[in-house]
């Protein structure tokens, strides 16, 4: 560690003096830290917003549970109940917006993870 002071943990089998990508952890880089995660059920056609108080646009991930109980990332396009769905998710500096993206009256479960790390 010649260029900075901090904490490093190497991956199993790797030397602590190896390059950064062989580290399990390094205080030189931020890790994705979960701010908020949860699930919400939405019945078509509807939208909801998961509020946050971070004051900036954070990194996030969203998945939707289809009728076959499989999860896929959102936004996406797929056929479910013989109808094409376009579930939508976008993040602003005040909240996460979720939209079922379909007019058929079906309930879908959204799973979301919002991180502290800033996207914008």
């Amino acid at each position: 560690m010649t260029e900075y002071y901090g904490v490093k943990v190497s991956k199993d089998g790797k030397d602590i003096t190896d390059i950064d990508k062989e580290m399990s952890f390094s205080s030189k880089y931020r890790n994705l830290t979960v701010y908020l995660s949860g699930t919400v059920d939405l019945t078509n056609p509807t939208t909801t917003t998961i509020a946050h108080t971070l004051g900036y646009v954070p990194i996030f991930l969203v998945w939707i549970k289809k009728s076959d109980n499989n999860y896929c990332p959102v936004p996406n396009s797929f056929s479910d109940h013989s109808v094409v769905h376009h579930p939508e998710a976008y993040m602003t500096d005040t909240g996460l917006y979720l939209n079922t993206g379909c007019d058929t009256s079906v309930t879908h479960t959204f799973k979301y993870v919002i991180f502290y790390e800033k996207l914008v």
Partner: protein
Amino acid sequence: MSNYGIKISKDGYDVKTATPDQLVYSSKYSNLKIFGVYTATVTISGTAGFTTIANPLGYPPLFMAYFDVSHGSGKYREMTSPGTIYYDLVDYIPAFCLAEYNSSTDELYFSVIGGTDGQQYDVKCVVFVDKLY
């Protein structure tokens, strides 16, 4: 590393018996380390547009990409594929977005097929220190 290292349990869990998902941190598992967040802009010319970001690392990186639904909107969507741009249930634009690592050019590549000529989309790409492969 079977019997030594660093572990931190979540509140309410015993660190000696906690399962991995009950830990805040374990040196046994690698963390995704953010190398940086990069910005680019896709401009639609005709019916499609693309942009690239040079790979800042010397190997294929793990990455996550987002773009705003309309230039300067402040509303960012993950660039999943197929990703239909569908804005506020009002301004439905049938278009598809794609984010990929191009191993031939060693670039991160972002494209939008469809949309409106002249429309711009800001791309935000989170590049991790961790290898894609």
